[in-house]
């Protein structure tokens, strides 16, 4: 996890299968505050439904989910913390 400028965090979860990218997201969410943007990189295709479920449960926003072939890039906005 790294800070890339104010309020934007890059979470590189590529290759993580166990416990998986959702672990890294949960950690970033814990450390976030309202208005922050989290950019998550993952290779596990299961991350998409997980992100949707996460966003609807936590009432945060998915700005985009982009399948770039070698990785999936999701941009999430924390609006509920």
């Amino acid at each position: 996890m790294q800070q890339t400028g104010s309020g934007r965090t890059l979470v590189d979860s590529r290759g993580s299968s166990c416990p998986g990218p959702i672990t890294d997201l949960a950690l970033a969410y814990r450390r976030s505050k309202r208005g922050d943007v989290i950019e998550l990189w993952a290779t596990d295709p299961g991350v998409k439904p997980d992100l949707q479920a996460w966003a609807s449960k936590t009432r945060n926003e998915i700005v985009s989910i982009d399948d770039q072939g070698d990785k999936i890039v999701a941009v999430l906005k924390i609006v509920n913390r």
Partner: protein
Amino acid sequence: MAEQVLIVGGGDGGTILANSLDRRRFDVTVLAASLAHTFQRGFLDVALRGRRPRLVRDEGRLVGSHVRLVHDRATAIDLNAGVVATAGGARLEYDHLVIATGMTTDPSQIPGLTEVNARFGDYHTDIAQAKKLWAHLDTFNGGTIALGQSSPICKCPPSPVEGILLIDELLRAHGTRERTRLVFFTPYPRPYPAEGINDVVAPILEQRGVEVLPFFDVDKIDPEASTITSIEGDELHYDLPVVIPPFVGADIAYEPGDVVDEGRFVITDKESLRVKGSDTAFAIGDASNLPTSKAGVGAHLQAKVVAKTLAGKRATFDGRTNCSLDVGHGRATYVIGSYQAPVARAAPNRLKYVMEWLLGRFFWMSLKGTIDPVFDIYFKVTEPKAPKRQQ
């Protein structure tokens, strides 16, 4: 002249590495804050089964005679200067440094947890805490038991699910299961984060009558009201809380300071295991920020990768995990995956339980390296296949 290898931390990873290095080529020093080496998996037996196995051995008997064991705690590591400072005032220099300082529980991260943890114990800290939890479970006479991890990083990811299933088994044996509501909370979308294993454990939890609260990321605990509140805004009442505390890396001042993250985990290349920006330092085991399970098996395999690299061979860590998951009633399964292979579905059975028990019996030998050939065969036979395909 022999090259100086300094290993900080004499736990599972540090010990295996020390014993894997060629004694003719390296001068090996292990700097160990504690000489009481503990088989941590045994905390489950103490806390949830009331057993009293012998879980501690003297580190001096586990490392080979070629290893210089220094009983002291690292307080500062200057990667630029190549020096490790200790609490006892020593300054140790090295040619190669390996950080193997593990991680420890830190209840102070959650408001209310320090008090709850001191009163009820837990099964991830030490034997005293495990005994405390057992005392509460053994005398529990009905009500709500709430069990879960209070932060996304957990030592041995299967251990929360194992905990609730073993408590279910215990209460059935005590005849108190019918009077007990068992609630399993988790920050993840489902009981086990990796789907292959979740497919196996979710039906078992349901069949045993365990209520699951997904997306329950602990925010605070109110010891007076006996409630746990999540960041997502849900509230849970308990009679007996079994809360796995958050974990942190060792309290060491690093230079440069940006080689550790907010949780004090060392930022490590996921294949070479080198510490960010360093040619001479590696990190293995729970101390690193690798995107893989915090487990002894990872520490073991990573120690072998570093040993090979130092011996001048080409070696990379493939993210291999291999954690046993005891589902109670004498059955177990294994969580096996790697950077390339997602965790496979594997049904629990008796054979895997026996294997898990055997691996526990051989734990001390595995640290000494005496049964390495057996492990090599085991890891080969169980190698996860099915390369992950992008879609």
